[in-house]
């Protein structure tokens, strides 16, 4: 095992982890306010990938459209899902929302099957993005670099927004104590809507990145990454954006490492490994890496 091989796995892990991180940010924001594990989040990534594929095949348009349009459309979609599926359940037991999110997930998957096709389709990036570069024996594509930079840029922008803007302040207050936020006159529906819009937009971006990375899309592609991203959010400390990014990157690197460093017969267990990691983190550090203890919440 050479140092090159190790570095190679690290690069691959960072690229995958960046996508987990993008998804985890949306999950952690929504969970922070509503205590909802939004199972439909990954399916928005899937829809984003399909939207992106339309713009990829229309080669006259610059590639930028294949990133921006799904991002914007999923932002809208997130708002629609929140309004129609989750808002009517405000005040209902949390488990009602959880089950609803599973329902939304199934609805999105099967609508895609119905309207398009259950068959996977190819997602081929044109041009230079997938061209392999070789730096000191480590191979990576422009897409890997783009993914990583994009995630960092989006995280910085989002953190600034949440720390500086009035809506961001309302989101943080709602996340800490939704009842108190309502009581003192904060428009919590607005704050919740903002969390869905921002998170779903990132899921749309992730759709482009995931599809570009694997070159194939299908109606059920989103569910497992969505759940894994939730694992990442828990590892990082649910409710924390920094934590979501850190958790995503750690999970991506760990998952690739598991596949890359263990004998090939173990690679079929990569999903089991991810969820075992969750169990270990919950046992050792239940609040995650950047998590706030419940005591501090008082």
């Amino acid at each position: 095992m050479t140092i090159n091989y190790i570095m190679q796995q690290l690069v691959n892990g960072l690229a995958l982890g960046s996508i987990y991180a993008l998804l985890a940010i949306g999950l952690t924001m929504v969970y922070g306010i509503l205590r909802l594990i939004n199972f439909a989040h990954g399916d928005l990534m899937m829809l984003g990938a399909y939207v992106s594929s339309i713009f990829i095949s229309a080669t006259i348009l610059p590639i930028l459209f294949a990133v921006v349009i799904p991002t914007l459309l999923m932002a809208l979609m997130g708002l629609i899902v929140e309004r129609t599926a989750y808002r009517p359940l405000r005040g209902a037991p949390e488990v009602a929302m959880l089950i609803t999110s599973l329902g939304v997930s199934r609805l999105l998957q099967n609508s895609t099957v119905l309207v398009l096709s259950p068959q996977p389709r190819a997602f081929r990036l044109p041009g230079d993005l997938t061209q392999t570069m070789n730096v000191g024996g480590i191979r990576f594509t422009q897409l890997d670099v783009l993914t990583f930079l994009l995630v960092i840029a989006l995280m910085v922008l989002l953190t600034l927004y949440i720390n500086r803007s009035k809506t961001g302040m309302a989101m943080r207050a709602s996340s800490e104590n939704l009842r108190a936020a309502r009581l003192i006159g904060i428009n919590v529906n607005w704050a919740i809507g903002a969390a869905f819009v921002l998170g779903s937009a990132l899921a749309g971006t992730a759709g482009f990145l995931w599809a570009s990375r694997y070159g194939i899309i299908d109606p059920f592609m989103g569910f497992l990454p969505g759940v894994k991203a939730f694992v990442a959010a828990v590892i990082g400390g649910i409710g924390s954006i920094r934590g979501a990014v850190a958790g995503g990157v750690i999970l991506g690197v760990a998952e690739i490492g598991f596949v890359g460093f263990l004998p090939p017969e173990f690679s079929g267990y990569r999903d089991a490994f991810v969820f075992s990691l969750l169990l270990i983190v919950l046992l050792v550090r239940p609040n995650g890496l950047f998590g706030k203890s419940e005591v501090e919440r008082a």
Partner: protein
Amino acid sequence: MLEIRNLSVAYGKIVAVSNLSLTVNEGEIVTVVGGNGAGKTTTLRTVSGVLKPRSGEILFKGKSMVGLSPEAIVTRGISHSPEGRMIFGRLTITENLKLGAYNRKDPSGVKSDMERMFGMFPVLEQRKSQRAGTLSGGEQQMLAIARSLMSRPNLLLLDEPSLGLAPLLVEKIFDVVVELRNEGVTILLVEQNANEALRISDRAYVLETGTVTIEGPSTELINNPMLRAAYLGLD
């Protein structure tokens, strides 16, 4: 200013407030006393629009408040400083105050009110960029009151402001309540510390199992033998 008529509120099948009527006139401090579970907090939460009444009417400045959202009620001039303070511990003191003014559209007014709050509670200014969770209990209570004043309310609902505070701080909080009234804020005060509350208020209501059992001027109630035995810990 506030008129509650025949109000009933229930949590599922459990009736917390039944057929309660209560009036607060402009410029008054009105105290509500009563034991745990008497329905005091439920009443305040219903006035703020967080709970929906089963029946009855809530009029504020002659207009019905029933069915309005909490933010609409804050905008109309009722502010609520909740039991247990419920400040946002992870946010800074300045952010907590800004959120109290969430629905206001006059940034310069908000700014000057923030200065006013810092004048009234100097300890908040000293620590304005710190997380509110680092404040002591008494300081958090002051922040909760200041936050609720940031919406420039005509009527302030104060739920258990002295709960869990040292006697010296209790004194300070009640001084603040009187000061606020002198500045023109009408106050509906819920207190376990009935003695102090009756001393500073104009009128009072005694609640038992969700309904009013005794009402009258505070000076009368302070001498009411039943009340003295049950709530004032005297005799």
